């Protein structure tokens, strides 16, 4: 509401809506299956195992990142592969 140029309500965006959306996204993920959060270490171990069947890689060479969104979640796995010349090469998927 604005009378004579004075504003009676705070002009800042309502942050409560942001809070609600953040919670909804977070809780939707947490409620599905609390155990699902614990699969990542297992997933990492399995991926390493599969790759090790074919080549030598270091346990430190795997980097897993997750980005959760309201519409989708993405899992980014970076694996440093040993280069033929010794330097690390990078495989991204």
């Amino acid at each position: 509401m604005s009378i004579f140029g004075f504003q009676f309500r705070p002009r800042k965006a309502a942050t409560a809506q942001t809070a609600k959306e953040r919670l909804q996204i977070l809780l939707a993920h947490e409620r599905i299956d609390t155990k699902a959060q614990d699969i990542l270490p297992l997933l990492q171990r399995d991926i390493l195992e599969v790759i090790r069947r074919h080549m030598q890689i270091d346990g430190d060479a795997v980097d897993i990142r997750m980005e959760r969104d309201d519409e989708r979640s993405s899992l980014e796995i970076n694996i440093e592969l040993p280069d033929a010349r010794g330097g690390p090469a990078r495989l991204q998927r």
Partner: protein
Amino acid sequence: MSKIIVVTSGKGGVGKTTTSAAISAGLAKRGQKTVVIDFDVGLRNLDLIMGCERRVVFDFINVIQGDAKLKQALIKDKRLENLAVLPTSQTRDKDALTREGVEKVLNELREEFDYIICDSPAGIEKGAQLAMYFADEAIVVTNPEVSSVRDSDRVLGLLNSRTRRAEQAGMEPVKAHALLTRYDTARVARGEMLTVEDVLEILAIPLLGIIPESPAVLRASNVGTPIVLDEPSKAGTAYEEAVARLMGEQVELRIATNERPGLFQRLFKRSA
């Protein structure tokens, strides 16, 4: 030499996580390499206050149990390059924490960071005791309210007896600072609330700062921004001054008035 600082209180809901987020962001803003660790296993919340809840993959417990490397679990802040968050597990309980595990992770963090901020859970059980065990300094968050002051006193007793510094001969005791939060000058003036002097007289430890009651704190938590990185506010400034004192600077103590504007201010100023 890196410093381990525990943010603790005994009582819940006094502002430990808000303080951990604000102090760690404030230190990082001043160029200090800082990591903030959530010790509240099973009730993860620091990630929400720091705004990185969607980026948690591995956590403190995964690192302790050897399921992930520390660098995989550390979440780099997107706003400040010197700042990292180590989230806790939402699915385990405090029994997953071990003194040896915590020590190993802290030692590894010491190699990279100047400040390690440990956000303690409420209470005085295992989680809270492990959060304080390796601390060099403590920030005891206290509300000017009887139960909070009593619990702070109890926590000060634990800092002086159940920490590595207390147990090992020849070590200086944990340096404890009081941080008064939710301080309402109007209510203090009306004699409805304990004054700073009252609280300090009872606790008998140096004061790190006084954070005024402020709507900016809720606003910042709504959007997942540590208060010192959000829009300027008296609470944010008070935290920045506390950070300066924590780093050893002499900053004069000012008691900020509340940020709840009166009718007159609301009519003639547009900011809330």
